[in-house]
């Protein structure tokens, strides 16, 4: 059913000509449909074309010269598989994704629970900081952390450690925001009931709230991981030389300097791993929330 309820009542009106069609409040939204289709095409086609050219047999990224896997592993020097710099970029990107996600999610979930129930000035301030980091231009945090790494002697070193710390700081707001909006719909009754039945406060959180929050935790895990492996600004500023440069930085460095389709292949590999994680996450998420409808909506921020 694409029509608005009530559409069946009005077809008689349509016979009055084109002017009546424009005035009919129940007509089908063709213009909106057109815009939506155009938008989806515009937003995804360029990327599909870039993916297509990663399979090009020649060096061109604009003229199709036949299908090959040359830029993935065929080419003994410049393919993603054989060029050690491209190869290590993929590995490092995924490694950063795993590390940052593993720290961000527990930290963020605990923070969401705490901020949601703790009243006062400190949690209000902490909440504001979370909101700020949610919309903050990434370069501000990246520059600030770069200064910390260059003018101070702290554990924040350029390289993997600094990158992970920066990424966690930047991503922490996602689980906090998503889990909190889920907590809002859950309310306090369940954990109060658990405590009345003899559970300790911690036990109520662990055995009741966390179970109910699983979908939101899962959604934020997938979101954070996919976002981290696509990150560019923080990982570039805090990278300690070419060995800790992830895929996005490699693309940035070579995109304007006569690249080969190997760059498209590199980007496609990352895209594929991103989609794989999301797909796995979505399938698992469906299992958690069996019976709940519209489960894709949680990924749109409607947790």
């Amino acid at each position, binding site marked *: 059913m694409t029509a608005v*309820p009530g559409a069946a009542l009005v077809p008689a009106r349509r016979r009055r000509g084109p002017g009546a069609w424009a005035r009919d409040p129940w007509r089908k939204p063709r213009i909106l449909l057109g815009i939506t289709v155009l938008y989806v095409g515009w937003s995804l086609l*360029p990327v599909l074309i*870039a993916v297509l050219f990663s399979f090009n047999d020649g060096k061109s990224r604009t003229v199709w010269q036949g299908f090959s896997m040359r830029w993935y592993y065929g080419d003994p020097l410049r393919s993603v598989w054989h060029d050690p710099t491209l190869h290590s970029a993929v590995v490092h990107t995924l490694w950063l994704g795993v590390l940052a996600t593993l720290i961000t999610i527990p930290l963020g979930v605990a923070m969401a629970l705490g901020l949601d*129930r703790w009243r006062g000035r400190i949690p209000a301030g902490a909440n504001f900081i979370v909101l700020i980091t949610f919309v903050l231009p990434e*370069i501000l945090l990246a520059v600030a952390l770069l200064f910390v790494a260059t003018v101070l002697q702290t554990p924040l070193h350029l390289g993997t450690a600094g990158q992970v710390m920066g990424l966690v700081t930047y991503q922490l707001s996602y689980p906090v925001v998503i889990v909190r909006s889920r907590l809002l719909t859950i309310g306090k009754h369940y954990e109060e009931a658990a405590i009345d039945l003899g559970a300790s406060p911690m036990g109520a959180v662990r055995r009741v709230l966390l179970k109910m929050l699983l979908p939101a935790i899962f959604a934020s895990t997938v979101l954070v991981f996919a976002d981290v492996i696509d990150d560019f600004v923080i990982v570039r500023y805090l990278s300690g030389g070419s060995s800790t440069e992830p895929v996005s930085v490699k693309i940035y460095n070579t995109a304007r300097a006569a690249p080969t389709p190997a760059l498209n292949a590199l980007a496609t590999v990352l895209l594929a791993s991103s989609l794989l994680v999301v797909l796995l996450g979505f399938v698992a998420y469906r299992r958690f929330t069996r019976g709940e409808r519209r489960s894709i909506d949680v990924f749109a921020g409607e947790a």
Partner: protein
Amino acid sequence: MPDTTARAGRRLLWPMLALPGTVWLVVLFVAPVYVVLAVLFGGVDPILRQPVPVWNPVHWDVSQFDYVLEHIVGTDGFFGPALVRTAVYVLVASVLCLLVAYPVAYYTARFAGRYRGLLLTLLIAPFWISYMMRMLAWINLLQNDGLVNQVISLGGLLPAHVNWLNGQPVTVVLGLVYGYVPYMVLPLFAGLDRIPAAVQEAARDLGAGRVETFRRVTWPMSRQAVVVSLLVTTLPMLGDYYTNDMLSSSPQTSMVGNLINNSVLTPGQTGQAGAFVMLVLLVSVLPMLLYVRASRTGEEVES
């Protein structure tokens, strides 16, 4: 009594949960912002050209700050144009984003029917595609012999070759729209989806046309979602430099992000980068403060 200890434990539980994340953000976000201030109001090593931070506000030296301020508004104001350009580009790109995203989000929330899940997946897809890959896709298309020029010149029949990637403001603004519009679609979708369809149907039943219904019902009810979606797209855009670097790489289109990025790695200019970081930070924190205050008073009115 066990009851009181349990209650005390419960009161302590929430601060305990919120604390790790709060400390993390204070140490790795708030404190680094202070480091930026210390570098901005610090000195520069005369030989090594390294920044020498000054930690005590009493001894802060405003010469680097003055230098930047002079070159924004003074007679030799070579920073001024970039700041104006940032404001114009971001404003135009945000408005275009809203014009594209609103109809798409509205159609998806209201009319997509059984294609809703599929459509939503397609709208979320750009999220999982690395920003750099999406820009790379456009570099491929906009090259001199790229698809866009081929289409414009009808496959080489017309001599209409546009140098898209050499400092064209149009390319940069459209690049920004392409890059950030997915972040706008989703919050708008979430907001529009919450408007009960019955309200709009009631307006039409009472004789309002499509435009009237939109102007007097849909738009006012979606205003908060519009504000949120503008915040989450416009503010991150303020710090963007990579879209510019990828699609233009010309100083004629450089934005404040480019000023930061170019000066932060140049010896002796770190203070300048700090000044611009603080400027962008102020510009992005202010709307957030207003938003938080407005939504808090809104809550009080509701309750």
